[in-house]
Every structure is written in C-alpha cells, then in structure tokens.
C-alpha cells in the first residue's frame, strides 16, 4: 500500500494579538498561538488514520488544513502527490478538491435548514457542473434512508439521520479521502453504533480513506488502523491500535488511557491525572508535557524530543525506553 496523504513538518500558527490600538497603548507584543507544531505523518490508502487528543490539541486544525479550509503556516501537505497550497494548475486543484470531502461534528449546524435534503446532498456535484439527476435518491438509499426523504427538510430528521445525510453529501462527489471531524460526538451511543457501522461498510464498499478525528478513545480503537496522539499541537505518539492500547509508550498516552472511564471499573478510584493542559499561547519550553509528567527531568524542560521510532511505535519522549523498562519491571 502506498501513502495517500503525506504531511511533513506541518505547522500552523494563529495571530491572537490584541487589536492594534491596545497593542500601542498598552505596549503589548503580538501574540501567536501555535495550534499545530511540526507534525509529520502519512496516511495509507484505504486505511483509517485517527487523530486523538483533548481540546486544543490541534486535531481539527490538521483536518481543516488537509481539506484546504485553512492554509498551513509552514510545512507541506500532499494528497496523492499534490500540494493544495502551492499547486497552480486549476484543473489539478479542482480534481483534488472533489476527491476530499469532510463530515463535521454537529449535524444540526452543518446542514442548511432552508434547503431540501436533495439540494444539500447534490451541492458538491452541482457546483462543478456535474450530473445530479437521481443522485440524491441513490445516495440516501446507500446511507440507509429512503429515496422519498429527498424532498424533506433537515429539521424533519433525528440527529443520527442527519449525520447520515452528511455522509451522503460527503459521498456525492465520489471522494477518495473523507475527513471526519468528531462525526459521532453529538450522537447517542446506540445511534453512534449505527453511524460507525455505516462508515465502516462504506469504506469497504467504496475503498475510501478516512482521517478520523475524535477525542473518544474507545471509538478510535474500534475504527482506526493507525492512531496519532496529539498534545498541544504536537504528535507525541503514533502506533496501530493494538500496540497503542497494549503498550502505550508516551507518558501522556498512558495518562489518557488511565483516565478514560472504563466499563469494568466499578467504584474503583484509578490514579487521577494531575494538572491541566497548559496555555497554548505560552507553552512550556522543552517537552510540552513536562509540567504534568511524572518522569520529567532537566533535559525535558530544555530540549523538545524528536518523534522517533521504537519498535512498532513512533514516540516523542526522551525517556521512552527507560519508562518502558520501568513499567515492565513493575508488572513482572
């Protein structure tokens, strides 16, 4: 299998400075928020790559850059060898854009309430002048709704059905890559299962590639072929689900896994994680996780660890080997 998406040294900063007058009067400097910092990853064709992380970790920003909603500040994003930010041939750009689609978190906010469902679904094809006859009906049946629903308005559907409509819209232009930004976070568990099953079926049927963005570790474990863990804009660990959940290497991943509520932990009090995510405008120097890390040393406070290979895993931690040794001693 070949890599469909290659992201190299991707960085995105946002200007969060006060307005000009305040800066002059109060002598404030410009402020920059680094949402994504030096992220390098590859997404294999026909696989599901999941990005997990807490709020402010930059997972949605990466998704938006990938579909071209935001330009990168530096670094490059290539989808099938084409970089949307620098490519100038309009034909190639157009082609690539219809190959990438997105599904958003909130199915209430991402459907225009004044449009009929069929108009919502065929829009991605219509704007490019494609043929739309019967397309909406076909897609609606493909996502488990009925063809008669095409004439209805979004408010006539439940949350799960709306998310199916969003999936149908994403499929309209025959994409090869779909960026799913928290596609089931707004849904109830039983409906979430329906939507996740639909997405898996469509992937197998149509040979799709997903970038799956989520904060829910159990969903990610179920869906993904490869998982990237983000913390404060940096990729701290990357592995396949089995390896990541069985032998997490980065202390942050270990903390995240320990903190996630488990169904069989009746009344137990697990080790509660310490501290909170630092302010992304002034991230700590060195390793961004060092203020909360139980293994942090002087080196962690000065030097940012590189993402390096360790067995099946890629991990950004100075002490990954030591920690692994320590943990295996403890369990032995």
């Amino acid at each position, binding site marked *: 299998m070949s890599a469909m998406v290659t992201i190299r040294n991707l960085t995105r900063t946002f200007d969060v400075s006060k307005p000009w007058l305040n800066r002059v009067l109060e002598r404030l400097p410009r402020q920059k928020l680094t949402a994504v910092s030096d992220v390098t990853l590859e997404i294999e064709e026909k696989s599901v790559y999941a990005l997990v992380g807490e709020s402010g970790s930059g997972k949605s920003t990466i998704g938006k850059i990938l579909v071209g909603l935001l330009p990168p500040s530096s670094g490059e994003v290539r989808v099938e060898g084409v970089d949307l930010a620098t490519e100038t041939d309009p034909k190639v750009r157009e082609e690539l854009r219809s190959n990438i689609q997105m599904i958003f978190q909130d199915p209430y906010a991402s459907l225009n309430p004044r449009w009929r469902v069929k108009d919502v679904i065929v829009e991605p094809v219509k704007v490019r002048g494609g043929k739309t006859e019967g397309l909406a009906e076909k897609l609606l049946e493909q996502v488990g709704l009925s063809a008669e629903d095409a004439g209805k308005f979004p408010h006539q559907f439940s949350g799960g059905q709306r998310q199916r409509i969003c999936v149908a819209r994403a499929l309209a232009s025959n994409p090869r890559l779909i960026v799913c930004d928290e596609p089931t976070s707004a849904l109830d*568990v039983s409906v979430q299962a329906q939507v996740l099953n639909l997405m898996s079926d469509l992937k197998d049927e149509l040979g799709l590639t997903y970038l799956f963005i989520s904060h829910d570790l159990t969903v990610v474990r179920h869906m993904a072929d490869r998982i990237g863990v983000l913390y404060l804009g940096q990729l701290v660990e990357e592995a396949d689900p089995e390896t990541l959940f069985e032998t997490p290497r980065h202390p942050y991943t270990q903390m995240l896994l320990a903190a996630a509520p488990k169904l069989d932990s009746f009344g137990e009090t697990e080790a509660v994680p310490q501290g909170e995510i630092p302010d992304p405008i002034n991230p700590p120097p060195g390793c961004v996780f060092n203020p909360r890390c139980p293994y942090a040393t002087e080196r962690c406070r000065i030097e940012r660890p590189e993402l390096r290979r360790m067995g099946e895993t890629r991990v950004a931690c100075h002490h990954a080997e030591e920690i692994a040794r320590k943990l295996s001693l403890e369990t032995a």
Partner: protein
Amino acid sequence: MAISPVAETEYKGSAQPEQGQQPTLSVRDLVVEIPTRRGVLRPVDRVSYDLAPGEILGVVGESGAGKSMTGNAVIGLLDRPAHIAGGEILLNGKRIDNLSRRDMRKIRGKEIGMVFQDPLTSLNPLIPIGDQLAETIETHLNVSRTEARKRALASLEEVGIPAAAERLDSYPHEFSGGMRQRVVIALALCAEPSLVIADEPTTALDVSVQAQIIALLKRLCREHGTSVILVTHDMGVIAEAADRVAVMYAGKLVEIGPVRDVLTHPNHPYTDGLVGSMPAHSHGQARLRQIPGAMPRLNALPEGCAFHPRCPKAQEKCRHAPEPELMNGAACWFPVGEDA
C-alpha cells in the same frame, strides 16, 4: 475506600430501600406533562425510585428520554408549560413537589445542590467566585459576611483550587473549564445539602479533567454523606462513579439496579442493546451491535411497550398488552437473562 454500606449490599435489583431506613429522596409515580396544541406530552411517565443517604444514582438514557426532566422536576425547575401532573417527591420524608415557589427557593441550594453541564453558564460572569460562594452560604446558613467568606475559602480548598485564597476574587472567565466545574461543585456543596443533582457534569470536559471531576464528586459525597443523582449519557462515567443505575427510555424507567449487575447482566433488552453498542464492547469485531431505529417521539409513542418496534425479542404481548410494570428491576415482559 468503602462505598457506603447501604449501596454496597442492600440493593439487590430492587427499587425499594432498606426497611426502616429513611431514604434521602423518594420519588413516587412521578408524572411530568407538557400540554401542547396537539395533545399532552409526557416526558416523564410514572417514574419511581428511592435514594439512600450517601448513595450515587446514575441516570442514563438517550437524549429525550426524560433523564434531565426528572432531575429538574425534583428541584422544581421545570420550564413552563411543563409541570408535575402526578405522583409525589419526598426529601428526607417531607413532600416537596407541592411547595410554593418561595418555599422551594429555600430548599434549592440549601437542601438540594445542583451541578450543570456547562460551568460557564451556571456562574455569574460579573461577580468574583468568592462573592458568589459567600452569598450562597450567607443566604442558606445564616452566618455573618466574614464567616461566610471564611467558609467559602475552605470549600474552595476542599475542591482542590490551587492558591484558593488568592483566587477568591477572580472572575469565572479567569478559570479553566475543569477549575470552573470545581467552583460549581463547591457552590453546590457549600450549604451542606443532603442531595446533589449533577446533570451531565463532565460532558463539556476533556477526558483527563473528567476523571478529576468524577473523583472529586465521589470523594466529597462520601465525606459529607451527600446523595447524588448523576445524570449522564456516558456509561463509562456511570460505571466508575455510580452505586446504582437507572435506565430511562421514552420517559419511563425501564431498568434499575446495582451498577455492576445492570452493566454486566442487563435485564431489559434496551439496556442490553445500549451496553452492547458501545465501541468498548466490540471485542475487535468489525461491526458494532446496533439498536435499529431511533427513540420514538413523545407525540408518537407506539402502543404497548414503547421499545417494542426496536426490540429484538418483541412478541405479540409487547405490541398490544399495556406496557409492562417495573418488576425485578426491569420493565419488560421478556427480560433478557430469563430464557437463556
């Protein structure tokens, strides 16, 4: 750490409390109705449960199942035109469902504390948190301003706000989401209520912060002997925090019992489906178990058992017989565990 003994041993799949011990909260056949132009809707339909002192009762269900509505009915915060149309609510043996608005206001905050989903909307953005806490303490406990401030500081320290003394005069926006939720918990517990209603207290928070808040809530309630109604849609949170769990579907209580029994051996097919559809239970299978369809709207409830159109075990009786009563912890004619 031992959970309160009542919760641990006495509840064996029954909604009834131990004989002789007075429950903190007792809800009997509670009905909430919303009159509309097209008929009367019942978002809560004959719900009954008891809550022992120090017990944490988790209430789960899909959106629209009536879980928040039940909590709001208990604290008398139903938005009109919704109103209590039947049944009774007893707090420490006293009826509170028929109190006047003024009497209810004395109870709210003093005897029943509240923690809502979004900590930013439950704090006043214009008042420093120390003053908000002191005001609550002053109103409910009849103490002087200085004494109230002292207690406010103590309660902030108790919920783990670092450098609490300096942060008394900070405004809500100066806190992070997790710290704000800690302040809200301090606010809910500062008048030493016997019952706290926590409505999705961790839904707006990140996983690592969620774990902190759940641990805090559990610790404080154990120390103060406060009972908690924990309303959430997250089964994982229930498993970790609750002693008993109540499952709601279309306004009705369909199953109630000790959390371990309900989650490992659900009796009602809906609970079974709910537990089974969680990705954590997929055990590496490619597909998740799913419950077909969606919860019916309140104005279009099916005849018989409300769950029968989605139920894999539905039979003739479920379609036509009047809906099943809650028996042995589950409201179902053909409970899951029985024929197996």
